[in-house]
């Protein structure tokens, strides 16, 4: 794909780090959910399905940020923020529904709360890019 302006776009500069971290989470969440669904799907269907959903969201966000698709990135990162908040709250209020952990359980405490911080940073980055008036 053609680079419009070297040095701009959601995958440039600080975005380079953001895409890398999203990529790591995409691979990690995909690996975790594949393993869970392949070996123990019947034991905890809800959290394992959520792990798979999280994996898809991370993959889409990584792709969108890397290829400068701002609208798709906003949808994916927004979904991620809603997901981590909803799963975070419900995993604390209804722990019996979460017999095993997902990436988003307890606001991502198992991953150093990076899953909670990441979408906030992602939205900040996307909105900042918007304000710079790219056409």
């Amino acid at each position, binding site marked *: 794909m053609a680079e419009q302006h070297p040095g701009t776009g959601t995958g*440039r*500069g*600080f*975005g*380079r*780090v953001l*895409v*890398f*971290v999203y*990529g*790591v989470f995409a*691979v*990690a969440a995909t*690996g*975790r959910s594949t*393993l869970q669904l392949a*070996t123990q799907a019947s034991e905890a269907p809800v959290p394992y399905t959520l792990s798979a959903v999280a994996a898809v969201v991370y993959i889409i966000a990584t792709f969108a940020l890397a290829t400068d698709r701002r609208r798709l990135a906003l949808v994916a990162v927004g979904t991620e923020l809603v997901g981590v908040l909803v799963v975070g709250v419900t995993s604390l209020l209804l722990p019996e529904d979460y017999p095993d952990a997902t990436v988003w359980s307890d606001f991502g405490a198992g991953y150093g709360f990076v899953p909670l911080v990441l979408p906030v940073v992602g939205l900040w980055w996307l909105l900042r890019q918007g304000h710079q008036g790219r056409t």
Partner: protein
Amino acid sequence: MIPLQFALSVVCLLSAVWLVVLLVRDRTPGRPLLNLLAAVEVALLVHLVLGIVRVTGDAPDGVSQWEYIGYLIGVVLFIPAGVIWSSGEKSRGGTAVLLVAVLLVPFMFVRLADIWAAGG
């Protein structure tokens, strides 16, 4: 943590300090640091083989072997992925990618130890 993991963690953390200095001074990594990362990667491949032998051989019953092997494979991927991804961005952003990559390595060792301990 086995000695190889400890040694690699020390090298990765030293690399991280080096990368922070580069970030502050707004420089990109030169040959010496990339050579060091290549050496770490070779050691990680040795670590992968040793780890698979260890977990399939004498692991306690409760250790999740596939999860352990998944982490062993994962830790090998960060540095090559980071070097390739950062090479397209000769700026602070690219250098920061390498910083994230080298910090992930010790983190993965901690997770490996946790998985092993959970089965013990």
